[in-house]
């Protein structure tokens, strides 16, 4: 075999010069591998990753589209109406007061004391209307009222009660709380999965739908002003 010995190198350019082009080619190829080759490989890997991510996103979107298309708008509107009536999107002090008052009067119970906590309480992240009411009337009416509160819009619960029976009449003092909370203001991202209404949710919605709807769809209509239109006019 040919060897690069000192003796051979001494023979002059004839020995090493013809090896220059192949050596240059190898050097160029190595340099290109680390530049062009790496660039192309990175491009391929990035494109492959992007295609994979897009495919997954498209599957999600397709699934979401099918799911949303299948849901009936009418059914959803019914659910929204029920849910918002049960848990209002704004301070529900007036609707709660209106409902409680009409329930009490409906049962022949008369209010002797009323204390509304306007600042409200909280139930976790939920804001609540809290009111303490003292009333008196017939024993059975008091218990019917307690049952009716469970079935009234907006959703409310008695958290505390003190009942004193005196003959046929009863003195009842109780604390009612009713939740409310601002309605969601933002929609999730287009490519994120949409929420599902589970069987348990449907059951709860049906339970809410079975509550006794208030007159006027839960809206408290302010009374017409009874005073003079211009009090400065004699």
């Amino acid at each position, binding site marked *: 075999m040919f060897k690069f010995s000192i003796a051979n190198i001494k023979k002059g350019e*004839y020995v090493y010069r013809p090896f220059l082009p192949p050596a240059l*080619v190898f050097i160029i190829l190595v340099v290109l591998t680390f530049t062009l080759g790496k660039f192309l490989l990175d491009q391929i890997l990035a494109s492959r990753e992007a*295609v994979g991510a897009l495919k997954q996103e498209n599957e999600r*979107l397709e699934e979401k589209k099918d799911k949303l298309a299948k849901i009936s708008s009418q059914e959803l509107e019914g659910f929204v109406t029920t*849910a918002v009536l049960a848990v209002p999107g704004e301070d529900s002090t007036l609707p709660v007061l209106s409902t409680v008052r009409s329930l009490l009067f409906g049962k022949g119970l008369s209010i002797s004391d009323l204390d509304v906590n306007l600042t409200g309480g909280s139930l976790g992240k939920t804001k609540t209307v809290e009111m303490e009411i003292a009333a008196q009337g017939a024993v059975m009416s008091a218990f019917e009222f307690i049952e009716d509160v469970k079935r009234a819009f907006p959703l409310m619960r008695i958290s505390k009660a003190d009942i004193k029976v005196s003959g046929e009449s009863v003195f009842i003092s109780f604390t009612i709380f*009713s*939740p409310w909370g601002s309605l969601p203001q933002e*929609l999730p991202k287009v490519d994120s999965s949409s929420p599902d209404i589970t069987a348990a949710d449907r059951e709860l919605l049906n339970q809410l739908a079975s509550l006794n709807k208030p007159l006027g769809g839960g809206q408290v209509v302010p009374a017409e002003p009874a005073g003079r239109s211009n009090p400065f006019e004699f």
Partner: protein
Amino acid sequence: MREEKDKQINLVGTDEEVERLLSVQKKARQASYGAIFVYVFLVVVMVLVNFFFFQAKKAEEEENARLKTEVEALRDKEGMLVTIKDRIALAKGVFTASGAFPIELIDDIFALVPQGVSLSALNAKSDKVVLQASSPTSLSFGDFLAAVEQQDFTSVLLNNVSWGAKSGYSFSLDIK
């Protein structure tokens, strides 16, 4: 002078050495051509693969844009779903509130009250009911206590039992 020329001629080497050198050069040249060919082939393959992925990406992006438009058209339904879920979460808090009035417990207690026993006061808070009742006879008082004890209440505590000739037995029960 002659000697100088001989020295120069001798530096060229033998034919065998030159032939061997040329063979090695040829192999190096062939190897470099081969490497260039393989390299170009690989680059072409990579460019084609890149092009394939570029086209696939473009197609998926077009599909993505189409799907997004279609989903956007259904966003009102999604908004309703979000609202419903939000309200359900708030309503669930009421149903599972620990401080809720124990109406079921009261119903259970009322179902146990026998003829003759009358309730005079009831205080209910959270999971506890305190009731005051009176019974004209020990029989109905005993029946009521036996009925309460047979139930699966967490705890039943009898307080303040008193007896009067007119009112009979007056007692207070703490039930959880």
